[in-house]
C-alpha cells in the first residue's frame, strides 16, 4: 500500500484552492486512504470487535473530513497535519460520549478511577490527556503538534518531521520531552 503521491495531493490542493470543487472530491478519498493505511499499521493481533470499532472510528473521521472543505490547505504536510487533528477530535469525542454513557448508565462495573490510573498506555484516559496537551500547546505549540501527529495521527518519526518541516532528530527530542512533561502533569508524584 502506498502513500498518496505528494505531487498528486499538492496538485489537487492547488486546484481546489483555485475554486475547482471537483478537486476536493478527489482529495477526500486520499485522506481516507491515508487513515486506513494508518489503521492497518496499528492492526495487530486484536479481535474482530476491535477491528469493527477501528473501522467505525475511521469512517467517522472520514465523514468529518468531508465537512472540512472550507479550509485552504496549502500542501501535503498541512493536509496530513489536519488528518491528525481530525483524528484527535474524533477520538476525544468518542471517549467523551463513552464516558457519559458509563456515568449515566451505571452499567459498567469498572470504576472511573481505574481508567484514570491507567499509566501503562493501553488504558490511557484520552480526555485527561487532551486537557494537558492543550496546556503544553500553550507554551510550546510545536511539541504539542508532534504529539498530535504521532499519537493521534499515527505518523512515523520521519512523516512527522516532514509534516512539520523539522529534522527527525528534533522530532525525537520534542517527543521525548513532551512525553515526560505530559506524564508528569497527568500522574503527579
Amino acid at each position, binding site marked *: 500500500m502506498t502513500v498518496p503521491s505528494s505531487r498528486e495531493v499538492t496538485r489537487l490542493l492547488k486546484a481546489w484552492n483555485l475554486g475547482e470543487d471537483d478537486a476536493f472530491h478527489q482529495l477526500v478519498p486520499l485522506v481516507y486512504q491515508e487513515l486506513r493505511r494508518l489503521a492497518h499499521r496499528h492492526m495487530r493481533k486484536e479481535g474482530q470487535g476491535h*477491528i*469493527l470499532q477501528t473501522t467505525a472510528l475511521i469512517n467517522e473521521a472520514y465523514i468529518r473530513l468531508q465537512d472540512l472543505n472550507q479550509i485552504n490547505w496549502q500542501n501535503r504536510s498541512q493536509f496530513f497535519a489536519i488528518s491528525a487533528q481530525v483524528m484527535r477530535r474524533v477520538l476525544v469525542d468518542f471517549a467523551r460520549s463513552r464516558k457519559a454513557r458509563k456515568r449515566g448508565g451505571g452499567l459498567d462495573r469498572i470504576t472511573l478511577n481505574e481508567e484514570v490510573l491507567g499509566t501503562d498506555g*493501553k*488504558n490511557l484516559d484520552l480526555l485527561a490527556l487532551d486537557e494537558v496537551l492543550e496546556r503544553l500547546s500553550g507554551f510550546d505549540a510545536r511539541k504539542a503538534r508532534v504529539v498530535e501527529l504521532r499519537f493521534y495521527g499515527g505518523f512515523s518519526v520521519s512523516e512527522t518531521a516532514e509534516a512539520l518541516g523539522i529534522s527527525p532528530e528534533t522530532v525525537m527530542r520534542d517527543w521525548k520531552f513532551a512525553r*515526560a512533561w505530559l506524564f*508528569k502533569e497527568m500522574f503527579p508524584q
Partner: protein
Amino acid sequence: MKRLDQVQELFERGLEVDPSELETFLDRACGSDTELKMEVMALVNSDRDSGGFLETPALDIEARKLAEERAGLQGTCLGDYEILEMIGEGGMGTVYRVLDLRLGEPRAIKVLPHELAEDPTCIRRFAREAKAAMGLSHPGIAKVFDVCEIEGYHFIVMELVEGNPVSELLSEGALPVEQLLEIAVGLASGLAEAHSKGVTHRDIKPANVMVCRGGGVKLLDFGLSKVSRKQRSSGLFDMSTESLTLPGAVVGTIDYMSPEQILNRGIDHRCDIFAIGTLLYQMATGRLPFTGGSVPDTLDRICHRHPYPIARFSPEASDRLEVIVRRCLQKNPEDRYQSMELLLSDLKRVRAGDVVPTGEASGRQSNGSARSILYGVAAVVSLLLLLALLWKLAFD
C-alpha cells in the same frame, strides 16, 4: 537562553546521569534556582516511570475500549432483560441472548451500535422499521417483540432462534436439493407474508436465514438494512466504504443486492425476489452467481451479466430449479416473478415433483425494457468508474 530550552537541555543531560547522582548533578547545574531543579527532577523521574505511556496509538486505545464496552454488557441488565451472553456481532449491532425477567422467557436483543445511536435520524428510522417488523407474525420470520431505549442503549427484542445460519451450511459447499427446497419454501412463505403486509426485507443473505434446531427456517433482521447512515454521506460511498473496510469486518453485503439497489432506483418487494434467486443459486451450486474479483467487477456482473447455468456446477439440479432461479435473477424487476406468492407456488411444485410452467404465467417475458436497460448501463458505467478509482486508491 530561554527558560524552556534550559529545562529541556537539563532534562536531556539528566537522563544520562545515574539516578543516584541526579540530585548532585542538578544541585550543581541549577545553583540557587530550586524551582528549575524541581522541575527537571520531576521530568526525569516521569520519563523513568512512564513505561508504555503514549506508545499505544490513540486509535487503538479508543477502539479497544469501545469493543470492551460492547462485550461489557454481559452479566448486566437492560430494563427487564438480563444479558446472558453475546451471540453475534455485525455492522448493524451486537446480538445478545437475554432472559426476559418478567416472563421468564429467553429472548435475543440486538443493540444498535453507538455510532448509529448518536444520530437522531438513524434512531427514528430504527424505531420505525422495528415497529413495522413487530406487525409480522409467521413461523418463517423471527418475531420482533419490542423496540426499547434504556440507559442510552437502543435495541430490539426478538425471538431467540436456536439453530444454524445458512451461511454456516454453505461453508461446506452446495446443499442437497431436498434441503435447499425446504429452506427456499420456508423462506418464501415468510416473505410472502411480510410482502402482503407491505414490508420488504432488502437484506436477504445466508447469515440472515436460520435453519432452526427443531426444523423449519426463520428469517432474521427485518427492515434493519434501511437503518444505516446513508443520510450522512452519499449512498455510493457508504456502500463502497462498507465493502472496502478491513478484510473480514463486513462480509459481502453487496453480493445479494439487486441491480435496482445498486443503481439506486425504485426499490420494492421484487428486490427480495432477486436476493432469493441469488441465495437459491448459491445453495444449488455452492458459489455466488455474480461474484467478481473486485467490488466493481461484482457490481458489473449483477447489473448486466448472466450467470452460468446451475447445471454447469451441479448436474443433478433439476431443469425446473434452473428455470425458477433464472426468472428470479432477471435484471429488470418486471421480468421476475411479480410476487413472492407466485415464486412460492412454483417452489412448492418443484418440491412435490410437479412440472413448473416455464412460460408466461408467472412473469412477463422480457420486452419493452430496452430503454431502461440503456439508462441502467450509463449509470453503471459511471458508477464503475468511480468505484474503480476508489478501489485503486484503497488497495494500490
